[in-house]
């Protein structure tokens, strides 16, 4: 068997097996395996197969359109893009810091986003694997199957997601693709009636989120051989943390820990991300491969997202989630957890944190009244960074004196995890699939590893393919709609 599995040394005579599409994830991806006659695996790759080109068509648009446009990168975490863009453009309009009202409205919106996205990912997408087993019958492995077998879990999951969406609607104006964050601030207050309706349910949501943490913890404790080893590999971790080391998903500076837990970079201001991170390109995926520049492409790749954040911060500033964080860290006696399935546990700890933050923030009078906009001297460019549900999200814009975006660069959360997801896929291929007859259930093992990272594959597609093209698209009557003829 080829040790690395990224690229088969010889492709002749190998059979291609595809998992296409990868399901119960957001966006468009597929996995290909190259297998020999004895069932040994020579290559395993996660491909991101769609290209959208957002960075190209944002250039030339007026800057104030951007926070609304970029949300359409992703319907699961639109708020993250909305806010990262607004934060970047705050610099451009000279509004740093923004007003207390703007800061708090945006934070509340963001924690609503974390709550709904984490609930969606765990209950609607991933829980069937964990509750029924990786090889359960295909027809059962979905949220409807969960609702039949575990109605309470499904109902609580649907309610947690609904509540997060209602927080977003109350702060952003709509559940999906709201409009409230604008360069320099926010364009609405929280309505007292919305606040009261949310407050009435907030305590129940905290309780259910806590049950979700305990559910995942029980799963770990019941089968540590699986949960601690499945797809396991070690790597550095990265996220932003607050200046005092607290978890803060809305703002902070970059911190990186080595695989052994030691801090190797700290307090890196996000606007220097370009010196800090380089993105590599591989011919078989539209998703780029970032790494920490001075560590190099081989050693410098890392994990982001809940598993990174829960272990990168020094503490979580809400009591129930902090108690769960301690239990999580104690589980391996203080050593970092690297197993992909531990993402679910860490994600539920953040779900609980988000529920606590929302409950505690709602009564704040700055949300329902106060100055919404700030402004100052124009700047030519700005960088906005935020911890989206899936990890560190970076938006960077340069804006001309004509108010048009001259240049933009986006590094989305899932892209940071590209190498990590590919590595997990190869670990699972090596350990569970090599030399076996590939059944549907075995192939689902690969998807279980990918799902743990909660990839958002439509976010991650903003590059272009260049291939020899000969393609005609015809309508129903046979008339030509589009013809492509281009050489590589």
């Amino acid at each position, binding site marked *: 068997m080829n040790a690395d599995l990224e690229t088969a040394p010889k492709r002749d005579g190998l059979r291609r097996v595809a998992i296409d599409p990868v*399901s119960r994830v957001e966006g468009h991806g597929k996995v290909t395996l190259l297998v020999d006659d004895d069932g040994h695996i020579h290559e395993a790759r996660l491909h991101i197969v769609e*290209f959208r080109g957002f960075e190209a068509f944002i250039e030339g648009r007026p800057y104030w359109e951007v926070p609304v446009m970029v949300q359409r990168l992703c319907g699961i975490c639109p708020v993250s893009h909305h806010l990262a863009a607004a934060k970047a453009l705050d610099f451009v309009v000279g509004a740093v810091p923004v007003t207390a009202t703007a800061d708090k409205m945006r934070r509340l919106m963001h924690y609503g986003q974390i709550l709904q996205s984490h609930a969606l990912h765990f209950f609607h997408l991933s829980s069937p694997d964990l509750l029924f087993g990786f090889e359960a019958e295909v027809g059962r492995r979905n949220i409807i199957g969960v*609702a039949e077998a575990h109605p309470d879990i499904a109902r609580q999951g649907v309610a947690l997601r609904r509540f997060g969406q209602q927080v977003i609607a109350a702060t952003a104006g709509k559940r999906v693709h709201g409009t409230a964050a604008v360069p320099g601030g926010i364009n609405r207050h929280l309505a007292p009636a919305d606040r009261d309706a949310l407050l009435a349910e907030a305590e129940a949501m905290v309780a259910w989120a806590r049950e979700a943490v305990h559910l995942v913890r029980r799963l770990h404790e019941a089968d540590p051989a699986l949960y601690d080893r499945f797809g396991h590999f070690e790597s550095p971790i990265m996220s932003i943390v607050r200046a005092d080391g607290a978890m803060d998903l809305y703002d902070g500076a970059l911190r990186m820990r080595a695989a052994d837990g030691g801090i190797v970079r700290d307090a890196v201001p996000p606007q220097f991300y370009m010196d800090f991170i380089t993105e590599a390109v591989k011919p078989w995926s539209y998703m780029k491969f970032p790494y920490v520049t001075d560590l190099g492409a081989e050693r410098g790749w890392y994990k982001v997202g809940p598993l990174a954040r829960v272990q990168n911060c020094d503490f979580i500033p809400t009591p129930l989630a902090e108690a769960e964080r301690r239990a999580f860290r104690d589980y391996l006696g203080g050593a970092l957890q690297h197993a992909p399935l531990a993402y679910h546990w860490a994600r539920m700890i953040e779900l609980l944190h988000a529920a606590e933050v929302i409950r505690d923030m709602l009564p704040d009078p700055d949300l329902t009244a106060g100055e919404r906009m700030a402004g100052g001297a124009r700047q030519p460019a700005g960088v906005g960074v935020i911890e989206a549900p899936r990890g560190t999200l970076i938006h960077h814009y340069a804006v001309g004196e004509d108010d048009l975006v001259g240049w933009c660069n986006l590094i989305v959360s899932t892209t940071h995890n590209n190498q990590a997801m590919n590595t997990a896929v190869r670990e699972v291929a090596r350990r569970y699939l090599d030399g076996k007859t590939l059944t549907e259930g075995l192939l689902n093992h690969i998807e279980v590893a990918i799902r743990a990272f909660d990839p958002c594959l439509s976010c991650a597609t903003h590059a272009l393919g260049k291939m020899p093209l000969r393609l005609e698209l015809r309508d129903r009557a046979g008339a030509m709609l589009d013809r492509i003829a281009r050489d590589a």
Partner: protein
Amino acid sequence: MTEPRKIRLATVSLAGCFGCHMSLLDIDDHLFELAGKVAFDRSPLTDIKRCGPCDIGLIEGGVCNAENVHVLRAFRANCHTLVALGACAVNGGLPAQRNHLDLGRCLTAVFQSRPGMDTGAVPDDPELPLPLDQVHPIHEVVHVDYFLPGCPPSGEAIWAFVSDLLAGRTPRVAHPLLHFD
């Protein structure tokens, strides 16, 4: 007496952002009611990877590459009623903003001359589906039975629409529920 046959429902995201699927889930608790009436076929919410014979197919997103065309045609061939769900499926939506750009030249430049990137070739593996020069609304490729606008259509609008279809009525989404943003 045998139970009435469940209606089969398939959904797919082509060149969309998944927001329309999020809105489908925004029917909240009605999800359980829906599950009582329909069986899900291919959908990002299930592990069924190929669309089988279905009563209803909901399409999110326009058509941006060769694979989208194949998937869309398979849905049309299998679904009795095909619905363009949301702005992207109806008219291409935001991804169609790239239609006025020369795909090859512009984005090749983006790929190879960006600061903060290794200099590398543009991805060209045969596993990557061929991108189309333009993003197309789905009705340019197949016949579409219903169009539900909105970016995304709200959960209420989707529930009203699907409820009518399930009850065998011609869907009529009340005006206040229809919007285009």
